[in-house]
């Protein structure tokens, strides 16, 4: 708690502030001021009741609800399962070949997304930054943000239409004398299809923070670099990139943190049983095992495993970047 009630705001004169003697120790002091705070601000606290109830029920209860990964769950029974079964479900998925397949697919899709979707916004922001005509710059930005605001269902629909056998991509291939490619049905195309649509949807939006960071770089630094004889490239390398480095690292940590949770909804919308061999990821497997096949405890165990890996990844990325470059999220 960073705030304390040492200075009495208006409306607290009824309570003599010197009553809680400092020698009675911190605890007594805290208790008295809590009582005072409640009496003074009970209306404010009352406004927080419903939101707190929301967080408790819909955010923290599901966190605790993860214990069903270690308990046997009966449909219609208790939220937290019936009795303890220990690591039974963990052992079950570790010996499940489908689990290892979806695990590999998750690593592939997460890795490819990281490799392609992280650097492209940086490059795009640098290019946009070199545009001198403001109207042109704004136009390019407006267009490139657009896919971000549409429903993922629409994005998936557009992706599938573009790559359909009668779609524009196959049309171009046809003009080049190539046979139509069944992008949507062939497992070997799924990763390209997923990453491609991800770039299309997120690249423009991803530039926002970099463009904001670029505007904070001091013009004098460029001036000094020019006087030292730096050309355009050297200016970008020695002034611009160091200037946006904290932003890049922050976003990289966040990207690493969401590495395992590859776009669940997008995969669900883009895949089909024919492309399961490359498209099925941990979260879609959790969905099918849990919601479709009602193996709730089993699915929860896999989901928890995924969440824990995610937490470990983001924590270690954060620690690593704090130790090496001195930038971190917390």
């Amino acid at each position, binding site marked *: 708690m*960073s*705030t304390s009630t040492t*200075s009495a*705001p*208006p409306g607290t004169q009824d309570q003599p502030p010197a009553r809680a003697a400092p020698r009675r120790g911190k605890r007594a002091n805290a208790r008295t001021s*809590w009582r005072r*705070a409640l009496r003074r*601000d009970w*209306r*404010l606290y009352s*406004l927080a009741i*419903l*939101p*707190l109830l*929301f967080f408790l*029920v819909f*955010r923290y*209860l*599901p*966190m605790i*609800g993860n214990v*069903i990964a270690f308990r046997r769950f009966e449909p219609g029974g208790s*939220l937290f399962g019936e009795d303890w079964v220990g690591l039974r479900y963990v052992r079950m998925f570790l010996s499940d070949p489908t689990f290892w397949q979806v695990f590999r697919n998750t690593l592939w899709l997460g890795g490819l997304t990281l490799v392609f979707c992280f650097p492209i916004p940086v490059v*795009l922001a640098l*290019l*946009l930054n070199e545009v*001198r005509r403001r109207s042109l710059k704004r136009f*390019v930005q407006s*267009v*490139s*943000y*657009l896919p971000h*605001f549409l*429903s993922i*269902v*629409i994005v*998936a*629909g*557009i992706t*599938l*239409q*573009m790559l*359909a*056998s*009668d*779609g*524009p991509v196959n049309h171009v291939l046809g003009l080049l004398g190539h046979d139509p490619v069944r992008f949507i*049905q062939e497992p070997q195309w799924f990763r390209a299809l997923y990453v491609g649509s991800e770039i299309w949807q997120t*690249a*423009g939006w991803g530039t926002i923070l970099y463009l*904001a960071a670029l505007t904070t770089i001091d013009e004098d630094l460029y001036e000094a670099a020019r006087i030292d004889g730096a*050309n*355009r490239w050297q200016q970008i390398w020695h002034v611009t990139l160091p200037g946006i480095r904290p932003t890049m690292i922050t976003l990289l940590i966040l990207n690493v943190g969401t590495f395992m949770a590859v776009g669940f909804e997008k995969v669900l919308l883009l895949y*089909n049983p024919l492309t399961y061999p490359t498209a099925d990821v941990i979260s879609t497997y*959790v969905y099918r095992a849990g919601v479709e096949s009602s193996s709730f405890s089993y*699915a*929860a165990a896999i*989901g928890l495993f995924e*969440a824990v890996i995610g*937490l470990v990844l983001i924590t270690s990325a954060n620690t690593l970047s704090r130790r090496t470059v001195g930038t971190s999220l917390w």
Partner: protein
Amino acid sequence: MVKPSRSYRVFQGVNGVVLTLVVLVTLYPFVNILARSFSGERQIRAGEVTLWPKGFNLTTYKIVFQDAMFWRNYGNTVLYTVVATAIAMVLTTCYAYVLSKKQLKGRGVLVGIAVFTMFFTGGLIPNYILVTSLGLKNSVWAIALPNAISVFNLLVMKAFFESLPTELEEAAQIDGLSTYGVLLRIVLPLSKAVVATMVLFYSVSFWNSWFSAFLYMDHSDLMPVTVYLRNLIAGATGGGNAGAATAELSQVGASIQAVTIVLTALPILCVYPFLQRFFVSGVMLGAVKG
């Protein structure tokens, strides 16, 4: 380096070409979908439709407009968006206002409770069991309640409330207004800009959402239009029995999909100019306050 201005001009030219390509690649699919929605089936099938409708007709629009289920689902989307946004606005405003009071005891804990949920969540299965056992299935509450507060929006709103001059509220309090009165009669009228932004943020996200409905609604007449569209796509690409029949279906589906995509995206495209400006400043604010 002898003529830096010249090499820089070359770079500017290349840069212009690259950015033009970015614009074309981003825009082309939209233009193509729009063209398809007005085109004839045969022309789409032959892959002739690129930038302009071929075999112009409105048949598909007529088919979709006459589909009672489409209108039903479109209406559902409007209903869910309105109800969920209203609930979200009330809860978010209340909590953001409480969090903006710097002298409030326990404020740090209240902030922490919200922010922690950004880093760790319960996961799909526990959420599903919770919503199911609360009996929220097949009702608008399954969509509205579990998503009632977006922590990001909460932080943006909190930052705005903190920027308001405290003297105004103190003066109102001395004049006899209670906390509720101050919030309703002083703070909210001063916060029209941020309230409008939040309404926009929430309604866009509820309009675009599909998964909660997909998860918690059992009957097709309860679905929002996004799920209607999703079912069209899934019906057309379900590769399970990818024979001649499915191929035929996907051909018929192509222009219907295009029309549905256009109609679903239309409201978003209409508010896009406002949306973009507000979202950009909101993201900056959120990034600074994190």
